[in-house]
C-alpha cells in the first residue's frame, strides 16, 4: 500500500536522528579532511595535504598494521571458537538454558569492566593467568611493557567480549539445518568430516558471512579496549586506527588530520568488507559448479 504523509511523519524521528547525528557530521568530516584546522583558528583549504601527511606518518602505518593484524586474529578466532561451541551446543548439552546464559554472559559486561577483569587476570604480580602461565612453564604476558604482549591481551579480551555475538549467529543458524540432511548424508555413506564439510559448513555459509562481516566492521573501529589497557603505549607502539584518530583530534588538536584518518577508516573498512564478500561469494559459487 502507498504511504500517506502521516507515514513519512512516523519515520521522521528515526531519519532525523540518523541524518542529524551521523549523516551531516560525516559530510562535515569529509570537508574538514581537506582543511587545516585547530582550536581558535579558521579552517583553511589545504587540498590533499592531510592525506599526504597521514601517509607519511610512520605512526599511522604502525596503527594500520596493528589494526589489520589484530582484527583478523580476533574475527577468525571468534569464528573458529563460535563455530566449535555452536556445534557443541547443537549436539545437546545438559541444562541448555543455564549453559546458554553462561556463554552469553560476557555480552553483558562493559568494556571498562572487561578491562578491569583482564588486567586483574594478567597483573604482573599476583595475576592468576600469569601465575598459570608460569605454572606450565610459559613466559608471562608483560603487556604493559612489551607491545606484542599488549596487543595479545587486547586480542584475547576482544575475543572473550564478542564471542557471544558470533556464537549466537552460528548456533541459531546450525539449529536451522534440518536433521534429515544429516541422515541423508549418512545414508549416502558420508563420514563425520564429510558431513561437516558438505552439510554444516555449506549451509552455515550465509551465517558465517554475516558474522564475519559484522565483526570485521565493528572490530575495525576498536577503541576502548586499547585506550583503557595501554593508551597506545609504550611509545605509540600499540595504537590502533581509532586511538590514532583520537590522539590526533583531542591531544594534538589536528582536526584535519583526524578527519582524514576518519575517512581512511571508513573507506578501508568498506573495502575490506566488499573485497571479503566478493571473495567469499566467488568461492561459494566456484564450489557449486
Amino acid at each position, binding site marked *: *500500500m*502507498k*504511504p500517506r504523509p*502521516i*507515514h513519512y511523519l*512516523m*519515520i521522521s524521528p*528515526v*531519519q532525523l*536522528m*540518523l541524518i542529524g*547525528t*551521523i549523516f551531516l*557530521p*560525516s559530510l*562535515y*568530516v569529509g570537508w574538514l579532511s581537506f582543511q587545516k584546522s585547530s582550536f581558535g583558528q579558521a579552517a583553511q583549504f589545504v587540498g590533499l595535504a592531510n592525506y599526504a601527511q597521514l601517509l607519511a606518518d610512520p605512526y599511522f602505518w604502525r596503527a594500520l598494521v596493528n589494526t589489520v593484524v589484530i582484527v583478523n586474529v580476533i574475527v577468525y578466532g571468534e569464528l573458529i571458537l563460535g563455530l566449535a561451541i555452536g556445534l*557443541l551446543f547443537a*549436539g*545437546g*548439552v545438559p541444562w541448555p538454558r543455564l549453559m546458554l*546464559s*553462561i*556463554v*552469553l*554472559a*560476557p*555480552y*553483558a*559486561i*562493559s*568494556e*571498562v*569492566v572487561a578491562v*578491569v*577483569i*583482564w588486567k*586483574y587476570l594478567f*597483573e604482573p604480580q*599476583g595475576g592468576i593467568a600469569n*601465575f598459570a602461565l608460569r605454572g606450565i612453564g610459559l613466559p608471562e604476558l608483560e603487556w604493559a611493557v612489551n607491545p606484542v604482549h599488549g596487543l595479545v591481551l587486547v586480542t584475547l579480551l576482544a575475543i572473550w567480549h564478542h564471542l557471544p555475538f558470533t556464537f*549466537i*549467529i552460528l548456533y541459531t543458524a546450525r539449529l536451522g539445518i534440518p536433521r534429515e540432511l544429516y541422515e541423508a548424508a549418512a545414508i549416502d555413506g558420508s563420514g563425520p568430516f564429510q558431513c561437516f564439510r558438505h552439510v554444516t559448513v555449506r549451509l552455515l555459509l*550465509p*551465517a558465517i558471512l*554475516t558474522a564475519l562481516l*559484522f565483526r570485521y566492521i565493528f572490530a575495525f*573501529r576498536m577503541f*576502548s579496549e586499547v585506550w*583503557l589497557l595501554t593508551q597506545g603505549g609504550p611509545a605509540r607502539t600499540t595504537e590502533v586506527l581509532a586511538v590514532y*584518530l583520537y590522539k590526533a583530534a*583531542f591531544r594534538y588538536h589536528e*582536526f584535519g588530520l*583526524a*578527519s582524514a584518518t*576518519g*575517512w581512511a*577508516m*571508513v573507506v578501508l*573498512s568498506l573495502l575490506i568488507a566488499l573485497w571479503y564478500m566478493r571473495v567469499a561469494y566467488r568461492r561459494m559459487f566456484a564450489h557449486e559448479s
Partner: protein
Amino acid sequence: MSHRPRWIAALRVLLLALVLLWSAFPIALVVLASLKPAKHIFDVPPSVLFLPTLENYRQLVRIWPEFFARLGNSLVITLGTTALTVMASSLAGYVYARRKAGLLTASAFFAVLIRMFPPIVITLPLFPVVNWLGVMDTHGLLIVLYATFFVSLGTWIMKTFIDQIPHELEEAAFVDGASLAQTIRLVTLPLAAPGMIAAGVFVLVYAWNEFLFAFIFTTTRAKTAPLLLSEMLGAVTGVDWGAVFAAATIQLVPILVFVIAVQKYLIAGLTAGSVKG
C-alpha cells in the same frame, strides 16, 4: 546418537567445562575478589578459601562516594535511551512493515547503511556543534547519541516482528472507526510487544555499558558509571583494586541478571536483526 563412543562423550564434557571456564570464570573472579579482604586480592597462588567481607564496598563508599551518583546518571540515561529508541523504532518499523514505496525502501536502506559509520569519527564534527548548542555534559545528549546508533537495528527488529502480525486485524479496527494512532496503540503494538522488548534489550545493554561517547562528551554532571570506573582504574594515586572490584561488581551484576532474564528476546532480536538484515 545414543551409540556415541564413550570417549567422545567424555571429550564433549571436557570441552563444555572449558567453554564455561572461559566465559564465566573471569566474571566470577572479579565478583569474588570484591568480597575478599583487600590484602588477599593478589595472593599468589590465589586464595580460594576466604571469609567474605564487605570491606571493599565500605572502602568504595569512603573514597569514591561519587560512584553512586554516576550510577544514577547511568540509570537515567539508560532508561531514557531505551524509551526513545523503542518509541522511534516502533513508529518507523510499523511503516516499513505496512507500506511500500521507492522512497521508503531507500530510506530503510539508508538507515541500515549509515549506522555502519564509526562513532569515533562522528565525535570530531559533533564536538564543536555540541559546545555551540550548549549541550555538552548533559544527559539528553548521551540519550540522543546512544539512541541514534540503535534505531536502525530497532527499526529492523520491529519491522520483522510487525511483518508477522496479520494486517487484517488492523483493517478490522479501521472498519470499526479506530484512528491510525488508536489502531497502532491498541492492536499492533500489544501484539508486537516481544519485538519491542527485543529492540529494547540491545540498546539498554549498550547505554548502560557505553564508554566512548561518555568519555568524550561528559565531564561532571552527566558522567556515567563506566567512565568513573575508568578513572578509578587510572587514578594517579595508585589503583585501589578492592574499591574497583566492588564498583565493577555493582555495575555488572544488574545488567548480567537482566541479560540472563531476557536471553530469549536477545536471541530472537539478533536473529531478526542481523541474519535477515
